[in-house]
C-alpha cells in the first residue's frame, strides 16, 4: 500500500517536473534551431542563430563578464570561506551558533535588500563596475561555501588532526596533507554552488554594477523592451547544455567514489 503510494507520488513528481521545467526548456532548444523569427511556426533547421550569437560582441562581452565574475567570486569565496568554516568550527558552542546565524542571514535575506544595501555602501568607497560586482558576489557566495564545507568538518574526527601532529607534522603540513584532502568534496561542491549562484544572480548584480558593464542577466533584461532575439535562445541552450555536462560529470565522479566504497565494504564482509 505504502509502496504503491510512494510509486504513484514519485510518478506524479516526475511528470510535474517534466511538464513545468523540462518541456519549456525543450521548446527553447527547438526554437534556437528554428529558421524563423516566429515563436510558433517551424521554418526549418538552421544554425544561423548560433553564428549570429558568436558574432554579437555585446552578448559575447556579457558572457565573458559573467563567466569571469562567476569564476573569480567562486575562487575567492572558497579562499575565504574554507578557513572561515574551520575557524567557526573550532569556536565554542555559543560562538559557533552565533556565527552560523550570521552566515545564514545573507542567504535568507531578500536579494533586493542585499543589493541596495551593498550599492549604498559601495558608492562611498569605489566606482561601481566589475570590482564592485565581484565584491558583491563574493559577499553572497561565502555562506554557500561555508555551508557546504561545514558538514565535512563535522564528520571529521578531531583525532585525525591530532594524529598528524602526534606523528610529527606541523600545523601547516597537517592542513594541506590531511585536512584539505578530506574536505575536497565539500570544497568542490561549495565552489560549484558559488559559481552557479553568481551566474544566476540578477538583482544584486543589477544594483551594484554601475553603467559600464553587463552580465548576461542584466543585458537580457535591458533588451526586453526591444524583444528577445533568437540569438538568446541559442545562448540559453548552450548554457543549459554546459550545466548539464558539468552536473553529469560531477554525478559520475562522486557516484563512482560511492560505488568503490560499497564494493570495499562488501569485500570486507
Amino acid at each position: 500500500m505504502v509502496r504503491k503510494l510512494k510509486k504513484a507520488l514519485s510518478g506524479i513528481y516526475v511528470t510535474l517536473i517534466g511538464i513545468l521545467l523540462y518541456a519549456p526548456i525543450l521548446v527553447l532548444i527547438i526554437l534556437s534551431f528554428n529558421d524563423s523569427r516566429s515563436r510558433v511556426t517551424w521554418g526549418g533547421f538552421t544554425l544561423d542563430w548560433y553564428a549570429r550569437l558568436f558574432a554579437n560582441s555585446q552578448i559575447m562581452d556579457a558572457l565573458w563578464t559573467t563567466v569571469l565574475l562567476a569564476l573569480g567570486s567562486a575562487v575567492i569565496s572558497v579562499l575565504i570561506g574554507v578557513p572561515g568554516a574551520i575557524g567557526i568550527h573550532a569556536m565554542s558552542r555559543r560562538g559557533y551558533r552565533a556565527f552560523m546565524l550570521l552566515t545564514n542571514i545573507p542567504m535568507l535575506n531578500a536579494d533586493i535588500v542585499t543589493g541596495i544595501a551593498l550599492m549604498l555602501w559601495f558608492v562611498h568607497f569605489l566606482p561601481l563596475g566589475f570590482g564592485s560586482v565581484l565584491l558583491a558576489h563574493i559577499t553572497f557566495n561565502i555562506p554557500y561555501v561555508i555551508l557546504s564545507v561545514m558538514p565535512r568538518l563535522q564528520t571529521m574526527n578531531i583525532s585525525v588532526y591530532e594524529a598528524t601532529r602526534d606523528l610529527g607534522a606541523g600545523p601547516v603540513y597537517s592542513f594541506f596533507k590531511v585536512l584539505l584532502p578530506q574536505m575536497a568534496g565539500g570544497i568542490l561542491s561549495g565552489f560549484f554552488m558559488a559559481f552557479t549562484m553568481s551566474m544566476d544572480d540578477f538583482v544584486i548584480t543589477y544594483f551594484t554594477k554601475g553603467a559600464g558593464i553587463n552580465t548576461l542577466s542584466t543585458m537580457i533584461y535591458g533588451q526586453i523592451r526591444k524583444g528577445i532575439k533568437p540569438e538568446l535562445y541559442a545562448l540559453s541552450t548552450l548554457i543549459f547544455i554546459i550545466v548539464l555536462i558539468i552536473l553529469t560529470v560531477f554525478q559520475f565522479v562522486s557516484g563512482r567514489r560511492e560505488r568503490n566504497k560499497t564494493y570495499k565494504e562488501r569485500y570486507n564482509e
Partner: protein
Amino acid sequence: MSDVILQLDSISKKFDGKDILKDFNLELHRNEFVTLLGPSGCGKSTTLRIIGGFVKPDSGRVLFDGTDITNLPPEKRNVNTVFQKYSLFPHMTVAENIAFGLKLKKKSSKYIADKIDYALKLVNMEGYGGRNPESLSGGQQQRVAIARAIVNEPEILLLDEPLGALDLKLRHDMQRELIKIKKEVGITFLYVTHDQEEALMMSDRILVMNKGIIQQEGSSKSIYDEPQNAFVADFIGESNIIDGIMVKDLLVKIQGVDIPCVDTGFGTNTPVDVVIRPEDLEVVSKEEGFLKGTVTSVIFKGAYYEIKVLSDGYEWMIQSVNPAPVGEVVGLTVLPDNIQIMHKPASDDEEVVRDE
C-alpha cells in the same frame, strides 16, 4: 640515565572554571605498563593530552627525561598516541598511514618499507598494507593505529581507551596482543581505561583516579586486595562497603556486632569504612555467623552463585559456589584477614556518623 622517563610535576588544569586536574603528580619509569583507571570525566584523557602536547596545563611542568617539555608542541615530543578511534587518515592506504611519521622524518624508502613490514607483522596484519582504512574492522583499524605509532620508535606510547569501541571478545584478544607488543618493543606504555578488568589484567602499575586526583596507586594485586578508600574499593571489583566502628586494635564493630580483624592503629571507637569482598563472605547457619540476615535473592552466574542477604538494612553481596535458600535466615562469617578497614574520608561524612 635515570629510570624515570616522564614526570608530571604538580599539574593543574581548569576547563570553564572547573578544576579538572589539581596539583597532579605522576612518574613513569622506563619500560613500564602504567594504567590510568577512573570513571568517565575524571581527567584521564586530559592527563594524556597534556603529556601528548595537545592541552597546555594552567600550571605545573611536564618533564621528559629531566627536560621541561611543557611548552613543546606535539610534533616535537618523542611520544606517540593511539587514539580511541577514527584517527586513521581515510584517504591513505594502511601502508601510507604507517609511513606518515617516517616520511616526515625523511627516512629512506627502504627503511620505511622495512618498518611497514615489521609493524604489520607486529600487529598481526601482514598483507593489509594496500587496504583502505575504511575497509577494515574496528579492531583492525586500532591495530593499524598502534603500528602507525610504534614505527616512530617513541619512548612512551600513550593509549587513550584504544579498545573502548570494540566488543568484549575482541577486546580480550586485543588485550593479550597489546601485552605481547609491549614486551616486544620494550617501551613505556601509559594506558587509559575505565574498565577495571582491563587495567587489572594488563598493567604493571595502576593509578586509580577520581575527580582529577590519584586515589591510589600500586600493582593490580595491591589495588584489588587492599583498597585504601571507599572509592577505590567500590570502583575496583564489587565490594561490600559498610560503616563500622574500630573498637580497638584488632576489633571492629559492624551492625552492632564485634568482629575480629587484623588492622591496628586506628585508635579506639573510631568510625571507619569496612570493605569485604563478596567472595570472602561465607554463608553458614544462623547460629554460626557473626551477622544474621535473610536471603533475598540467588542468581547463578556460571562460575558461582551471587547471593544477596539483607541484614539490619544493609544488603550484603556474597559470591559462593553453593546456593542458599531464598527467604531463610542465615549467618555470615568472614576471616579476619579478609576484612579491610579504611579511614573515612576527611569530610562531613564523619559528622553524620557521629550524630547517629
